[in-house]
Structures are given as structure tokens and as C-alpha cells.
């Protein structure tokens, strides 16, 4: 942390936002929000999903215009009409979903949006400059590489370098640690500290208390579009206080976790290899087993084969090796085989894979059972039976939607996830493959999903849980497998919070960890 300032009032404000109001159809995302950032500080913005953090930051970064309120930079009123205005004023934002062009090189991405050179591009010169800048703040990156070839962590570094190259003095990072392994997080923090030491400012958006307390000089907490604590000193509050400010009620993760004796081996993955979408090896001779009544967690940094593993098991990706479910090898078979073998799947991409956005709730709720009675009657489709099933599931899983005829796209993230879980769990699976089942959900919804997974385990279903949230894996999994570069690198048979460092080391392929 930076040395304690003596007289805080004399430190100039880099940015000041006053009375920001921003609404979207049906949502008041920012309700009279005040926020400021001092020069040379790391200011954390804490809040749940949907608290309005990203909206506020998008206002500061010029992507949104506020309905009312104003923004001052270095004491002067500004009205950003576009992100370009914000960057010109020295404010750069690294979004949660990176805004890089995958087919272009690092240098080309850095040049994007700059005013100079105006016409002819000298990429070799730019590559040299980017290399220098990266070295200055201790980031390693190859300026000539194409972005799609880079890991997620590397892409984040490119984003940061791009913003600095564009002259950002205030860097806004939206949930930067969500995609990083523990060791990568430590590296990022070191980079951020060296940046503020050089007089720049950082706004660090997060919903993770531990991180925020570790990195922030000051904290602002938001909830439901409003600020519940503004610019407080992190040393003056406890985790419990912060949690209450964030959630509005005490957080209790009281999960009904009963002892279940693992049964027979339901899933056995044996020596499986597969390519990713870019044709590069994603799984290399990976093997693992999941037993009935057991939750096996997969911990891995994004891009180490865990997504492909889920696709291979559920028949969405071709592979070599054996994928045995209840004694039947379904490797490289179409998804139909997996479904018929009792494999349920909560996919990573809920809107893109797990649902048909313009079709009704009814159609979405029977997505994996339309081949069986009562919905199917021979070649015919029994609409009444489908509706009855949809009604039943909507009630049982508290999916909130105006009618069962509403299209799935109008559902909130949490409701859509409940729909998918309802559908998959109702099929009474022998194996459930759940990928990032709680990503983007608010705390209440997360608890609900966790409980559903534990209930399934209690019923004797084998569960393979792939998650980037280490806390989630620790809370739910009977065993944790760490994947690194397409292989199972380590197994933790009875994981506890004491294993976090060891897990993190394996996730980054740390030496000596084997």
C-alpha cells in the first residue's frame, strides 16, 4: 500500500462524479451517485452484480452519457460524448469482456483509436514502443503476436498497455481478477502498485472482499444503484461490515451439506485429447473419474481445457480416447448419445448454447425431453403436455416470467440459469456437467444454485463442477482436480481453504508443485 498521506484534503482529485443518474428501460442503474478518485491512489468500487458499478464506470469512460449529473476531471467539468473523449481526458477503461480485435496484432490493437500516425502505419516502430512501455511497468507481452493466440491473462495485459499507450492517467479495471489465477492476481497487483507509485490512479471494480481489502487505498460500496459507503478507509471496516453494505443483509452461506458415500463410477474419462475452436490442442491425454453422489470440482485458469472437457463429455466436441458414462463409451458421438446416457449439461454460455432466446419458456423447458412421452407422441408433439410440464417447472424452480409463452430472452441472468437448471435437473440425470453455473448471478441466486447442486448430490447424481470461483469449489466439491494445459495436474481429495495456495500454484503450472 502507498505510504499514508498526511493531509488528505490537499491531494488533488483526478476524477469527480456528482449526482450521476442513469436509467435503462425498466432499471434505474445509477441513482444520484457521487464518486471521486484521487491522484495516485487505488480506489476500489465494491458491489454485487447489478449494483450499478459498471454503469457508473461506463459513464466515466464515456461509453454512456448520464441522464443527469456531471463529471469533473482535474477540477474541470467535462461532457464525454464518446470513449474517445474520455481517453483524451486521460481516463481509460479495461472492460470485463475485453475490447480487443482478435484477428489483429498486439501492436495494431494498441494503435486502434489513436490519432497518430494519421495515415500510414509503421507497425515495426509501434512494436518497439509497445515493448518499451510494457517493460517499464513490468508486463511481459509479445507486441507482434495476434490477440487470438494470447491467453486471457495476456490479453488483459494488452488492454492495460493499450490504455497507458493512449495516455491514460486514470485506469478503470472492471472485475480484472475474475479470469486470473491467484499468482496472476499477485502479478497484476504489483503492476497496479507500480502504476500508482508513478502518479497514475486506478479504479478497481470487484465483488470480492478479500481482494479489495488487499489492494485498495480507499473503498466505495454500491448497492441497488446507490452508494452505500463513499471513499472509506479499508482499515476502518471489517469484512462483515462491507458484506452488509454490499448485500444489505448478513451473508450466510448455510448450505445443507449432508454426508454422502460416493457410489459407483459414473463418468470415466480415459486418455482424452481434443482440439479447441482454433485447431490447437486443448485436451492432452486427460483422465478423470466422477462417482455417484460426488461433486468433483475442476479448477483452472481460463483456456486450460476445462471448457473443452465439458464439451467432450456432453458430445459437443469430437475427441480421441474414451468417455465412459455408466459403462457406455460415448466419446466422439453426437450429443444425442450423451443425452440418452443420462448426461445433463449446464453450459457455460447460457444464452448462446443453453437456450433459444426467441422461443417461449415452454419450448426452452422441454429442450432436452421433447423426444420422450408425454411431450412426444410418436412423430407428433403434444403441446398441452409440454405446457403442463413447463408450468410445473416454472412453479417448482421459481422462474419469474410473465407467462410461459414469453420468449426466453426476457429472462434475467438468474432466471435463465434457473430455467436451465430446472430443465437439466428434472431429467433425473446420472451425471450433471455444470460449467460456471453461478457466473454473473447475484448472491441470493448463487445460494439457490449451490443448494440445487447439493440436493442433486444427495440424490446420488454424479456432478462435475467447472468453476473459476475457487471459493465455490471449496464450498461444494468433495474433490478438486486442477487442470493445466489440457491435463489434470493435481488432485485435492479433501479440499479446504488451506489448499488455496497449492491449488493456485498448480493452476499456473508452478514448478515444484507436482
Amino acid at each position, binding site marked *: 500500500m502507498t505510504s499514508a498521506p498526511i493531509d488528505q484534503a490537499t491531494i488533488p482529485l483526478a476524477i469527480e462524479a456528482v449526482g450521476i443518474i442513469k436509467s435503462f428501460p425498466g432499471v434505474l442503474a445509477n441513482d444520484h451517485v457521487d464518486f471521486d478518485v484521487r491522484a495516485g491512489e487505488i480506489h476500489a468500487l465494491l458491489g454485487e452484480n447489478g449494483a450499478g458499478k459498471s454503469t457508473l464506470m461506463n459513464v466515466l469512460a464515456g461509453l454512456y452519457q448520464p441522464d443527469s449529473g456531471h463529471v469533473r476531471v482535474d477540477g474541470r467539468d467535462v461532457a464525454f460524448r464518446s470513449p474517445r473523449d474520455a481517453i483524451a481526458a486521460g481516463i481509460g477503461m479495461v472492460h470485463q469482456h475485453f475490447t480487443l480485435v482478435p484477428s489483429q496484432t498486439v501492436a495494431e490493437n494498441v494503435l486502434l483509436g489513436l490519432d497518430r500516425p494519421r495515415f500510414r502505419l509503421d507497425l515495426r516502430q509501434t512494436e518497439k514502443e509497445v515493448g518499451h512501455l510494457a517493460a517499464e511497468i513490468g508486463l511481459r507481452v509479445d507486441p507482434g503476436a495476434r490477440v487470438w493466440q494470447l491467453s486471457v491473462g495476456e490479453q488483459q495485459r494488452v488492454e492495460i498497455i493499450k490504455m497507458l499507450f493512449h495516455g491514460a492517467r486514470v485506469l478503470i479495471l472492471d472485475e480484472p481478477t475474475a479470469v486470473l489465477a491467484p499468482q496472476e492476481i499477485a502479478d497484476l497487483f504489483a503492476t497496479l502498485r507500480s502504476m500508482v507509485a508513478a502518479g497514475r490512479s486506478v479504479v478497481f471494480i470487484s465483488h470480492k472482499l478479500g481482494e479489495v481489502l488487499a489492494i485498495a487505498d480507499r473503498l466505495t460500496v454500491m448497492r441497488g444503484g446507490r452508494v452505500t459507503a463513499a471513499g472509506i478507509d479499508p482499515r476502518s471496516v471489517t469484512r462483515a461490515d462491507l458484506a452488509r453494505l454490499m448485500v444489505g443483509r448478513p451473508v450466510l452461506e448455510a448450505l445443507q451439506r449432508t454426508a454422502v458415500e460416493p457410489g459407483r463410477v459414473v463418468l470415466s474419462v480415459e486418455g482424452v485429447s481434443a482440439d479447441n475452436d482454433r485447431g490447437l490442442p486443448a485436451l492432452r491425454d486427460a483422465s478423470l473419474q466422477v462417482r455417484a453422489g460426488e461433486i468433483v470440482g475442476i479448477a483452472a485458469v481460463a483456456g486450460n481445457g476445462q471448457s473443452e472437457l465439458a464439451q467432450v463429455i456432453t458430445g459437443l466436441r469430437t475427441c480421441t480416447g474414451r468417455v465412459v458414462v455408466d459403462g457406455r463409451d460415448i466419446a466422439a458421438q453426437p*450429443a444425442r448419445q450423451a443425452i440418452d446416457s443420462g448426461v445433463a449439461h449446464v453450459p457455460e454460455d447460457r444464452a448462446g448454447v443453453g437456450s*433459444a432466446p*426467441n422461443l417461449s419458456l415452454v419450448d426452452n423447458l422441454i429442450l432436452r425431453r421433447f*423426444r420422450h412421452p408425454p411431450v412426444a407422441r410418436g412423430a407428433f*408433439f403434444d403441446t398441452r403436455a409440454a405446457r403442463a410440464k413447463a408450468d410445473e417447472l416454472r412453479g417448482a424452480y421459481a422462474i419469474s416470467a410473465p407467462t410461459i409463452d414469453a420468449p426466453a430472452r*426476457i429472462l434475467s441472468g438468474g432466471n435463465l440459469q434457473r430455467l436451465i437448471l430446472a430443465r437439466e435437473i428434472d431429467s433425473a440425470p446420472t451425471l450433471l456437467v455444470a460449467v460456471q453455473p453461478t457466473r454473473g448471478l447475484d448472491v441470493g441466486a448463487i445460494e439457490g444454485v449451490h443448494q440445487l447442486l447439493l440436493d442433486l448430490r444427495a440424490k446420488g447424481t454424479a456432478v462435475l463442477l467447472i468453476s473459476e470461483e475457487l471459493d465455490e469449489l471449496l464450498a461444494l466439491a468433495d474433490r478438486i482436480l486442477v487442470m493445466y494445459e489440457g491435463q489434470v495436474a493435481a488432485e485435492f481429495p479433501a479440499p479446504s481453504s488451506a489448499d488455496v495456495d497449492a491449488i493456485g500454484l498448480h493452476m499456473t503450472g508452478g514448478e515444484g508443485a507436482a
Partner: protein
Amino acid sequence: MIIRLEPRGEPPRWLSPLLTIAAVIVALLVGAVVLAFVGGDPVKAYLHIVKAAFGDVGVLSDTLVKATPLILTGLACALAFRMRLWNIGAEGQFLLGAWGASAVVLFPLLPAGTPSFVVIPVMMVAGALAGALWGVIPGVLRARLGVNEIITTLMLNYVALAWIQFWVFGPWSEGGFQQTAPFPKEAWLPRLTDFAKTVPAFSGLTTHLGLVFALVAAAALSIAVSRTRWGYEMRLIGDNARAARYAGIDIARYVIVVFAISGALAGLAGMSEVGGVVHRLQDRISPGYGFTAIIIAYLARLGPWRVVLASILFGALILAGREIQPSGVPAMIQGVILFCLIAAEALVRYRIVIGRRAPSAA
């Protein structure tokens, strides 16, 4: 002042049909302006269309004759579009269907004097098969090799036309003219006028059995789409192919099958046209039915029964439009109708907001 579009939540149910009708009206108005511009009298022209298409039983029957190939090709397009397969090749599939049906008579595949109740079913099968073959080619290329079906179906239209021309100028030419000899009576589809002896009111009415094929096809598709598993799977593929794959559906197989059926429907249209109307094969057998079918499918919002309605409307436009000069006007009006429909669709999904504030995110 900035005009921008904001998404609507759930559009009211009446909005979409209302805007569809509005789109047609606007398109007709635009057509009127163009007509007036090139020196025509739009009011007279449109009145003429109405009278020439719906004025009495006789012309109504002619309108239905024109609507018949449109219904079948329109259904062909609507079926493919439901899966977001852009079959722009109904024209070529129509031509191949006409050729296949003609081949039965002209090769001949059946001995002369074969009775009607044998010749006509064989012609139907031959036409549908030839059309299906022409549809399966782009279907397989799309399903197995990921080849863009828009380009392939379009190119095959030109190939089909050259193929027809080869036969009507060459082996099947009647005395060097660009047409074949007329078919024997056994290969003619029965017309209403053929029953004038028992029902005198039918005298002179040219509506033929092809219309029955078209209506049966519409009914079959309507049931398939809304009441079968097959319809559900198509709905799913059309909305989100990745979700369909996740649901265990073999999409490649569907692409090929749908292209085959789509081609068969268009081929049947070609058969119905040579068997029911022209009674011979000639190279100018289609005034662009396969292209008008695209607009019909879109106007009908892919609903089989609505395709029937839209086809009757366009049948009238083609029938009466032949006399409108210059000859490009009906084609142009079709283009304008399509643009108005697209704009109307946007108005269903978005509302126009005129405001002074800069556009912001939705």
C-alpha cells in the same frame, strides 16, 4: 435532433400484422408515384389490377392459376427460411421440376397412350425428384463443407436455365422453335373447365389440379410445423443452431432434408406449371416465380396459410401487371414491398425516438 431506435419490450400482438398491411400499402403508394413519374396513371393502373385479377369468376380463376406456382415455391422458401437457410434457388428448382415432368412425356419414360392416372403421378414424382436433386446439391455443400448456400443456390438457377435452354433449343425443340411439342392430353392436369359438362358454371375456368397440390402442401406443412416433433426441431435450429446441437439434434441432416423438401416443392410447382398451364416445356416458363416466392415467404412471415394468401395477392399483381408499362414496374414494386416489410419488421422490434440527447446504450 437525433432519431434513434429503442427496443420495445414485448410488442403487442396486433402490431405486426398491422404493420405488414401498412407496408404493402406504402409500397403500392411508392409504386404509384413511380408510375406517375414515368407518365402512367396510377389510379387507373391499380383499378385495372383489381378488376383484371378479381373482377369476375373467370379472372379470379386466372389469378388462382398464377397463384398456384407461387404458393408452392413460396412454401419452398418459407420452409427453408424457417431454418435460416437462404434457399434463393427456388427458381432453378422450379425449372428442373418442369424439366423432370417434361422428361416423362418427351423422352418418353412412359409409352404413348399411358392413361392419365398413371402419367400424372409419375410426372409429379419426376418433377419433385428433379427439384429435390437441385435443392440437395447446395444442401449437402452447406451441411458438409460449410459452403454459403446463397451463392450456390443462385448460381444453380443460371445453370438450370441453361439446361432447360439446351433441351428446348436442342433435342426437344419443335421445328427449331424455342419450345417443345405440346404434351398429349393424358399429361394435362385436369382443369375446372374439363368438368363443364357436369357443372356448367365451370366452363372456361382454367384453375387446375396444381392448386390442390398447393393447398395440400400448405396444410401438410402447417401441421408439420406446429404439431410435430419435426416442427419443434426446426424451430429450435432456426432460432439458435448451437442450442439445437446441444439438444442433440443432427443439424447437418436437417439441412439436407429441408433443402430436399424445399427443392421438391419448387419442383412440383414446375411440374404443375407445365402440366396444368403451358402443356409443353419452353425456356421462358417462369416470369421469376422463384424470386417472387422469397418476397411471398417474407410477407407471410413464413406461415404456410399466409403464404397462400400472399401468393394470391402476388398472382394478381403478376397477372394484371403484365399490361403495366414499363415492364419493370411490377418487379420494382416487389422490391419496394420487401423493403417496406423489412422496415415494418424493424418497427415491430424497435420504437423510433426523436430526441435531442445523444444515443445511449440499451
